């Protein structure tokens, strides 16, 4: 390594942090060769780099691991480039490795140049401008609702199906259930020794209103059938539409 190389390396040693990695450092070092990157002497570059690393170590600068890895690799490359090729050795030749390094440097350099070209272009908001007063598109949203005849009919069917259960849930006040009739008749039947019209068993207040009367009649009739089945009463009807009579059945 000659004096000028050393001087160049010294000038660079000021701030290792200023480099963005070993490739960047190599690219900067390569500039001292003042040749096209395709003609660069990778051997000389490797030596420059190794000198730089040595110097940095002398100054006890902390070097990131990748700088040292690169140094090791370049030392290896250097040995390959200097020694005559060993035919028994496998892998790429020193020249191939050197060519790839040169390619990497050229590519990095090219990307730098083109990054600069890109940034030198006219830029929006700096050299050319968009409309200052934009008129926003007002978005009006109109919602239309759809329903088909089928929806309509199904909706109606749903309600009407619900209606069928209403007497049990909603209209209890006007329905005299069979359970109620049974309860009432079980209490009264003990006193019914003689044939009595079942209509006399209708609860109080259910005789006048036709709706209530019908409900109470039906449930009382049903209850009497139930009691007859249990063998508690006897049933008789003189004729079609004649009054139905019941009496207590004595065991």
């Amino acid at each position, binding site marked *: 390594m000659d004096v000028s190389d050393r001087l160049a390396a010294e000038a660079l040693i000021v701030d290792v942090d200023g480099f963005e990695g070993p490739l960047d450092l190599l690219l900067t070092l390569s500039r001292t060769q003042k040749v096209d990157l395709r003609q660069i002497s990778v051997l000389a570059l490797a030596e420059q780099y190794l000198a730089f690393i040595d110097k940095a170590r002398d100054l006890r600068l902390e070097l990131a691991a990748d700088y040292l890895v690169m140094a090791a690799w370049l030392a290896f490359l250097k040995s390959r480039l200097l020694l005559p090729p060993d035919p028994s050795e496998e892998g790429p030749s020193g020249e191939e490795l050197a060519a790839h390094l040169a390619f990497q440097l050229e590519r990095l350099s090219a990307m730098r140049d083109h990054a600069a070209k890109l940034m030198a272009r006219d830029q929006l908001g700096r050299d050319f401008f968009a409309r200052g007063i934009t008129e926003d598109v007002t978005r009006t949203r109109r919602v239309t609702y759809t329903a088909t005849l089928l929806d309509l009919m199904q909706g109606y069917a749903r309600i*009407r199906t619900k209606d069928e259960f209403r*007497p049990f849930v909603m209209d209890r006040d006007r329905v005299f259930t069979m359970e109620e009739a049974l309860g009432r008749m079980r209490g009264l039947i003990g006193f019914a020794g003689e044939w009595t019209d079942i209509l006399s068993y209708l609860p109080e207040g259910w005789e006048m209103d036709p709706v209530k009367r019908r409900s109470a009649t039906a449930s009382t009739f049903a209850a009497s059938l139930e009691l007859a089945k249990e063998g508690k009463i006897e049933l008789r009807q003189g004729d079609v539409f004649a009054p139905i009579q019941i009496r207590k059945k004595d065991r």
Partner: protein
Amino acid sequence: MSEDQTPENAGEQPEESLFEAPPMGEQERMVEAILFASAEPVTVKELAGRMPHGCDPAEALVHLRKRYEGRGVTLIKVGDAWAMRTAPDLGFLMQKETVETRKLSRAAVETLAIVAYHQPVTRAEIEEIRGVSVSRGTVDQLIELEWIRFGRRRMTPGRPVTFVVTQDFLDHFGLESARDLPGLKELRSAGLLESRPAPSLASDEDSEDGDEDENQSEMFDEA
């Protein structure tokens, strides 16, 4: 262009004499670019301040205004400032109407169905049939859709309003009249009504739409 500069003016603004003002075509371009990019209307004075010395933005504005006559964009004066705006007749392009189709809610469908089958029907009757109260929004929505409208007031205490379906309703659902709506029997035979006969009650759920009491008494009559 510089010929019309009077020496007095030149004396006041020394830069003027150093450079010739750009040709009017260029000045017009400048005014155009400034008005385009500016977030606010720009006064002539401000234009002059931003353009090279010796420019005559007032004249450039006259040319520019003429150039934009009848275009999609026009040059307008706002107070003593100038701005570019899209032509008023093209305002419709600045609106984007998105039509969204939604399915009518279940409450609305049911309310609509009740009006259709029972019209004229009061709100109280709708509530009685549905078994739940009808929200104002549901009725309003159906009125807005022009599927139901107010009918005659019922001649009962409180004279409640009734609802009936509209011609729009019939058109939308492809019906000649509300009487064409299928009855419950038809609904069932079409498989639209799940057959769920109430236990121990007579089978005539299909009794057409009378009121509830009638239905019940009918059922008992047949029992």
